[in-house]
Each structure stands twice: as C-alpha cells, then as structure tokens.
C-alpha cells in the first residue's frame, strides 16, 4: 500500500467531435500524487490540463488507463458520490458554480444533496465559512460579493464536504490581484492546517512557485515533474512550449546567457536580490 491519494495510470482520452476525427487530448499520463501534497499543473491552452483535472473527479472517464482516487476507481459508478466527496472540484468562474441566492445555503448545497442531518450540516457550513473568512457574509446574496469573495464561497462549498483532496481549475483566472491573494491564501491554509491535498491548475507562474511540486503538461503529456525550483530552471524548454517562468528566474537566465556566473534556480524576489548583491560584492 502506498499513501498516494491520486494515482493516474497510462491515461488516454479523446474528445469526439462530429465533423473531425477524434483528437487525442491525453496521451498516456502517469502521475501519482501523495496525500497532503500541494501540486501545481502548468500548461499552455490545449495542453490537456483541464481535461486531466476532470478525470480526477469522474466528470470525464478515461478512454483507456485508470484513475484511482483514495483507492476508488473513477469508473466505478456505484462509488461516484463517495469519490466526489473525497475529491472536490472548484472551477474558474465563481458565478457559474454558486447555486443558491444565499451564501450559507450555497455552502450547504453539497451536504443537502448527501442528506447530512441538520445539526451536523449547520456545524460543517459554519466551519467551512470560517475557514475561508466568509462567516460574516453568510446571509448575503452572492450578487453582493466581489469575485474573490464569491470564489471563496465556492471553495467553502467544497470544503464543507470535508474532502481529502481539492482540485482547482484556474480558480484565480477571473479575479483581480486582491481576489487572487485571498483565494491563494485560503488554499495554502487548507493545505498547511488541514493537510488537504491540493491540485492547482494555473497559468500564473508566481502561484506555481508557491507549490511544493510542479507538473508541466504539453500536448497531452507530462513533460516536467519536479520542485518549482528545478522546473523553472528549464527556462528554454518552458519557453518552447509557450510558458513563462517567474520574472526573477528569467532575469537570472538572461544574465547567465550573457556570461555571468549565476544560478538559475531562483524563484523568489528575495533570492534574486541576495544573489545579485553577492554578485556585485565580488
């Protein structure tokens, strides 16, 4: 037995379209994610990262290969709700995932569906709202909230199910910088304090840099899988598939190209500053 919460084995998937030949989106993905990990999945548009995410939650089922979440085969229909309770999913547009016109009732939606009794539900809803710092807004209408607040409500709706793992599909793409900070703060807190496994799909490099592990996808394949530091040092490779690296990493890379002796394994501004100071003092 392993402590892998997500196991993806040789996953293939293609979308069927009427006019064209089916196009293969995922071409043999192998990926294991351990319990409590904080993983970012990076990739260009059309790299298959969202499709991969939808497999973890059994919204899509593999054409071939297997996906296991907490030991549950995603193609096992009998355990579908158990699976979805275990692996919650948050989407890009907060407006399109909020069901109710009252914040606390939306957070309760999943629990209502699962038939959780009232006392238990009340407690879990309040806990979830407190975890995302939205308790004071519990009786508001979502229409009165900002984008970041709405996304936090959507996250609370998932947290209320007490999942072991949360998959977030570009949760900050539609938010302003303030909203992004709030949402990232909540996600990191969930991972650190509750040990919830996080799979964060993003195209913001600075968000990926905050994760413990970065998986880079291109054209339906995993091409890099390592710590952020190691992944972002592959500057040329990242650029080739149309991805950026954090600005500081790029600066170091350019300096190195210009013949200056500097490590490209830096991802934070502070590291960059230290490195440059050291270099100038030489």
């Amino acid at each position: 037995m392993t402590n892998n919460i997500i196991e993806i084995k040789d996953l293939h998937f293609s979308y069927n379209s009427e006019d064209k030949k089916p196009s293969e989106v995922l071409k043999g993905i192998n990926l294991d994610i351990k319990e409590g990990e904080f993983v970012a999945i990076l990739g260009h548009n059309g790299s298959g990262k969202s499709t991969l995410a939808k497999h973890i939650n059994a919204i899509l089922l593999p054409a071939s290969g297997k996906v296991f979440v907490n030991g549950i085969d995603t193609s096992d229909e009998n355990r579908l709700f158990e699976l979805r309770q275990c692996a919650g999913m948050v989407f890009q547009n907060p407006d399109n995932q909020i069901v109710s016109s009252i914040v606390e009732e939306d957070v309760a939606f999943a629990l209502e569906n699962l038939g959780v009794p009232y006392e238990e539900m009340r407690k879990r809803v309040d806990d979830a709202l407190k975890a995302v710092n939205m308790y004071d807004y519990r009786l508001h209408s979502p229409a009165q909230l900002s984008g970041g607040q709405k996304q936090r409500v959507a996250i609370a709706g998932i947290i209320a199910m007490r999942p072991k793992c949360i998959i977030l599909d570009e949760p900050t793409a539609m938010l302003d910088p303030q909203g992004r900070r709030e949402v990232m703060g909540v996600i990191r807190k969930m991972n650190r304090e509750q040990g919830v496994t996080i799979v964060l799909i993003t195209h913001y490099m600075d968000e990926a840099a905050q994760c413990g592990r970065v998986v880079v996808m291109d054209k339906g394949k995993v091409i890099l899988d390592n710590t952020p530091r190691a992944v972002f040092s592959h500057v040329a490779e990242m650029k080739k598939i149309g991805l950026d690296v954090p600005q500081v990493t790029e600066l170091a890379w350019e300096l190195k190209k210009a013949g200056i002796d500097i490590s490209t394994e830096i991802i934070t501004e502070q590291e960059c500053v230290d490195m440059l100071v050291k270099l100038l003092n030489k």
Partner: protein
Amino acid sequence: MLKDITIGQFFPGESIIHRLDPRFKIVITLVYILMLFTGENFICLAIGAFFTIIAIVMSKIPLKMFIKSIKPIFPFLLLTAILNILFVRTGDVLFEWRFIKITVDGVNISVFMIIRITLLIMGSSLLTYTTSPITLTDAIERLLSPLKKIKVPVHELAMMMSIALRFIPTLIEETDKIMSAQKARGAEIDTGSLMTRAKNLVAILIPLFVSSFRRADELATAMECRCYNGGEGRTRLRQLKSTTKDYVALAIAIAFYAAAIVVNIIMK
C-alpha cells in the same frame, strides 16, 4: 443602472407578519382569497377589509406600497366598473339616456367588484412584500411535496425557480456589459424608431443567450461535482418551523372566513 432592479417586491422587515412560517402565509392567503370570493354582500367585504387592514398595520409596510400595487390594475378596475354599470339592467333606474341605463344594482355591483379586487390585490401583495422570493419558492416546494406521489416534479420545478432567481442579478449585470460593449462598437440601442430599436436588441440578446447556455453547462457540472442527484434523500439547511403564532394566525383567518359564510347565510 439595470442593477437597481429589485426581484419580486420583497420589503425586508422584522414584523410578526414577516416572521410567520411562509407555508402558513401561503395557506392563509388562500383562505383569504376564498373569503373574498364567498362574500356576497358588503358586510362580508367589510370583514375582509378589516382583516386586510389589521394585517397591513401589523406588517409595518408603508401604505403607499399597497397603493402602488393597485396602480397597474387600475385600468382593469375601471373597465370592470364601467361594464357592470352599463350592463346590469335590474333594480331602480337612476339615469336613462338613449340606450344607456344606469341602475342602483349596477352601481352597487361595480362598487362591490372594485372593493373586492382591491382587497384581493392588497392581501396577496402582502404575501410577496413580507416573504422573499427564495423563501416563497421553498415554501411552495414543501406545500406541494405530496404531489410527488403522483409524479409531479415538485423538487425540480422549485430548483429551477431558485436557480432562476439566483441568476437574475448575474444576467442583468451581463446585459449591462454586453450593452456597453455593443455601444462601444457603434451600435445604437437607445435611439431610432421602435422598430430599429427592437432590431438592435438582437445584438444584445444573442450574446446573452449564448453565454447563458455556457453558464448552464458549467453550473450543471459544478452541481454534479457537489453530488447533486435530484430531490431524493435531500436534507435542508433552511428549516421551516411552525410555531404557535402560525397556528393562531391560521385560526384567525379561518374564523374570519367562517364569519363571512355566516353573514352570507343570514343575509340571504
């Protein structure tokens, strides 16, 4: 600008009428409507009016709101009155000129109809003024739940209704955005004849429809992710509890109804 539109006519408050169980409020309103329609004379209407006035005073909602609720049906009231005056030909003649003949009965019936409809509107407005649309939907779902046995999709209807309520502000906001975007591209929405304006609306409605379908698709996925599986075995966060005051209110309404019936029988 569009954002200011309020949904329904809910007037938030903390009065005893606001705090009544919405299910009871609906039933009481139905009893009230029955009372108005069983009443055949002015005494019955007076009983109805008395009931309405007490309820309005207790709800602490300004009277001008109720006057506003009558306004849209005013032409209809007027028409009913005129038709009754002209076409009721029994009773003592008050005035006669060529084919027009106005009788005491005609006048009586018109006044009676006006009061009855006015009371009807005021009473049912009180329900929507004191109950938020979402609570109302919830209460209707629970009241109709026995119909599930004969395969009426009560839960599904209520779910659709509440999602519609939830998305009204979102869609209004979106309409605003599309209008600005189309204006920025030179579309003339606020000018021109009625026909051109109607035609130009297409430029707003089509993007709105397309995006609504996309929203619907995403919402459906998000609901599935949260284990939505229809109405079976669902529990609810919102608990509707009926207390003594609800039963008392219902008893009072039924007492008024009984009084109207008694008056009807005596006056016959």
